């Protein structure tokens, strides 16, 4: 993998240097850059379908949304009133639900990311330690990743209801005092949503860490052990640092995933009670589809998009730093 990145880096800078110059066609094509140029056919037609579909459709939608965000529109009336940037002003100055949704997204990201990382590493270490039934355990932890949240939602609604199986379990393990309407009250609804998300995505974290751990140099572990390091010490000082790349990638995926959160809070708690599980995605949906405040929903969408974009740029910068580090190390 490192090899590929290195090659790619070199090649990119190379072709970047030549693409500016006009191609030397025919004749004395001994110089390597010119030769490469001649050997590379024009590629624009090849990327055109992707651009039309991806960029065309999506940028069209973004442009359209940007226009709608300046309107006070119910989505149906033929003559929507233009209100300039008023929708944005209202969102930032007098919309407590928006800030609630932002806060939930941040809490959601931090909690689910930390829990998934911890569980993922623990599972990966355990599965690498020759336990019995390892494959079965792996299947159980990974199956939630492939199940649609929309299909599991009724299961969780039932499970966390007041006389659901979760309360039943609490009673039977002697924690009857904790029995409560988990999704029916503000204080526990968000933790339930986060627990469902952790249940769903830990399998992916685990599989990634599992793969990353297989690449750790065994002799390094042996050496540490000979030097007297115990299991815990090995985990903290050797295993965890060598997983850094995977952790960064998972953090980025998790952040974008948190911004996109819709299915679970919408289907399990309908973003309630009293907006306790409101996220940006569910808020936009409520505003646009249910309340027909299309202009306002569009302004929310644009804000969501800008935040996602900022994260994408961070993704690129971090990714580049990582590549540079790897190169420097060699």
């Amino acid at each position, binding site marked *: 993998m490192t090899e*590929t*990145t290195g*090659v790619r880096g070199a*090649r990119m800078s190379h072709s970047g240097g030549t*693409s500016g110059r006009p191609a030397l066609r025919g004749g004395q094509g001994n110089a390597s850059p010119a030769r*490469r140029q001649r050997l*590379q056919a024009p590629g624009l037609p*090849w*990327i055109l*379908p*992707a*651009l039309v*579909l*991806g960029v065309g*459709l*999506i940028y*069209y*939608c*973004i442009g*359209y949304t940007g226009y*709608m965000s300046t309107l006070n529109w119910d989505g149906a009336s033929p003559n929507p009133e233009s209100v300039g940037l008023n929708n944005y002003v209202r969102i930032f100055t007098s919309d407590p639900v928006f800030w609630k949704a932002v806060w939930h997204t941040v809490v959601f990201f931090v909690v689910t990311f930390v829990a998934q990382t911890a*569980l993922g590493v623990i599972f990966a270490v*355990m599965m690498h330690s020759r*336990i019995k039934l390892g494959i079965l355990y792996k299947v159980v*932890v*990974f199956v*939630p990743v*492939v*199940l*649609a949240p929309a*299909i599991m*939602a*009724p*299961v969780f609604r039932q*499970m966390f209801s007041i006389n659901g*199986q979760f309360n039943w*379990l609490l009673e039977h393990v002697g924690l009857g005092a904790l029995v409560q309407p988990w999704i029916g009250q503000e204080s526990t609804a968000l933790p339930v949503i986060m627990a469902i998300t952790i249940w769903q995505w830990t399998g*992916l974290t685990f*599989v*990634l860490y599992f793969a990353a751990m297989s690449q750790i140099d065994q002799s390094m572990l042996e050496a540490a*052990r000979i030097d007297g390091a115990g*299991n815990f010490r*090995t985990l903290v000082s050797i*295993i965890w640092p060598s997983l850094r790349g*995977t952790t960064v*990638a*998972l953090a980025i995926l998790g952040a974008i995933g948190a911004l*996109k959160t*819709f299915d679970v809070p919408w*289907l399990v708690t309908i973003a309630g009670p009293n907006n306790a599980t409101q996220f940006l995605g569910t808020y*936009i*949906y409520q505003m*646009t*589809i249910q309340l027909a405040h299309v202009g306002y929903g*569009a302004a929310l*969408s644009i804000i969501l*998009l800008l935040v996602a974009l900022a994260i*994408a740029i961070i993704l*690129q910068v971090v990714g580049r730093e*990582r590549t540079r580090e790897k190169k420097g190390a060699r």
Partner: protein
Amino acid sequence: MFEVRTRWGKVLLQVLATLFVLPFLFPLIVMVQGSFAGAGWGNYRAVLGVPGFFRFFLNSAIIAAGVIAIVYVVTMLASYGFAKLHIRAREVYFWMLLVCLTLPEVVLLTPLFSTTQQLGLYDTYWSVILPLAALQVPFAVLLTRNFIHGLPDEMFEAARVDGANSMRGFLYLVLPLTRPIAAAVLIFTLIGAWNDYLMPLVFLQSQDMQTITLVPQFFVGEFSNDQTKILASAVLTAIPEVVAYLCLQGLFERGLSAGAIK
């Protein structure tokens, strides 16, 4: 990773692992056990007896197949272009695609809603297939382009010297050599399309167009909130996914994790 030499240590580790895994199993047990509550197998019979139940599966399959076909063709063409052919301002185009990577689908709802209605595409498969494909393409291109970058330039140059044009290079070099990454693209596109909820919810209104992710809601109406039958329908809709995963375990795990490994 861990060295556990003593007998007790081994037992302790096994017990710990089991304790950690059980919470993951619990919702699945709840689902299956709940689906048998009350009428037992009768719940399943009632669900399977609902006319048009298989229509949901068929619709999901059609949509997933459509998305996969479009994403595969478009991605392979574009990745080849980006990785091995000459394009002016290539990085600009690539960045324009990458921006779409982070786009939450809820942002697309209103523009697509009015546009599909104007074009007469509303409540057709296209109104779900096209946006889903558009959302999957950037990521698929990112993965595949990196993969094709790793293929040696000399091979493509040799083919060209031997008189192969870029189309032949594509057919005889790119397509066969990209199979491993194509499998990954296939899996995450399949899961993305099959499990998607929002697009079918908004764009597929007719009963006989709806996908399996809308099944629970359909049965809330159909059985006036009879939880046991709703859970039975959840089990039935989950079975194809679980079976597919069990049969292609390695492929699923590699495919889904391809995103986090650069």
